[in-house]
């Protein structure tokens, strides 16, 4: 990987403290789609193939299918086990307090996917969280909804189905 490409791909943001200190270490080069559900193979079908890279229409279809088929979907920097920015880490840790399967795509792996998600949601930053097909927002909003109880309400159906 060239230096210039690396600098483009890893324009992430460092950890910062919210309610708890976040790790300051940084993981580079993580390039896999992660899910914490009991069926780890479920979402591999949604991982974009290289041939899709120049087709925003197809990527938009992938995203639409992602958010439709996965009750809790997060597009983030890194993967849930190894977040590569504090905001993505915060969103994951909030969501993991609920007993729901969390599906994720690492937008650092694929610049075209990153751009397609921004266009899909009309939202310029990451992480981006979708619940039951609805765009929820970034880590600020997820944390706020957690604090007000709205998140528990929205995830109630999902929890009860497990």
């Amino acid at each position, binding site marked *: 990987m060239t*230096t210039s490409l690396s600098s483009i791909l*890893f324009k*992430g*943001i*460092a950890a*910062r403290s919210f309610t708890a200190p976040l790790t300051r270490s940084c993981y580079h080069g993580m390039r896999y789609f992660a899910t914490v559900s009991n069926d780890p193979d479920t979402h591999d079908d949604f991982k974009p193939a290289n041939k899709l890279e120049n087709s925003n229409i197809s990527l938009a279809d992938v995203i639409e299918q992602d958010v439709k088929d996965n009750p809790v979907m997060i597009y983030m920097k890194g993967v849930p086990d190894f977040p590569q920015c504090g*905001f993505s880490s915060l969103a994951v840790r909030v969501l993991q307090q609920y007993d729901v399967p969390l599906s994720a795509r690492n937008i650092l792996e694929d610049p075209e996917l990153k751009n397609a998600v921004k266009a899909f949601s009309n*939202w310029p930053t990451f992480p981006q969280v979708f619940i039951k097909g609805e765009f929820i927002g970034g880590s600020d*909003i997820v944390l706020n*909804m957690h604090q007000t109880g709205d998140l528990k309400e929205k995830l109630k159906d999902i929890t009860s189905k497990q």
Partner: protein
Amino acid sequence: MSSRGASALLSRASRIRSKLQTALEATVLEVDDVSYQHAGHAAVKGSSDKETHFNVKIVSPKFEGQSLVKRHRLVYDLLAEELQSGLHALSIVAKTLHETNPNK
């Protein structure tokens, strides 16, 4: 740098403050540069621009009746140029005056 013209003379913090105040007529506007908290992070070492991370707190009547998503999207839209020219992350608190004084 020269391609940014006159706006290059203002810090990003000043530009952010100016854009938000003009559009939102805020009664409270706090713009905090927290880039130093991320300065050592490898992911942004390549960035020549130092003003990369901001926390903003805004109290404005423009947020009346708007969902959180719509409020944040409004702020992002106002700062679209900054996000395209080096601003990496924005933490947003967006409230109406009533929400800061719920008893009134």
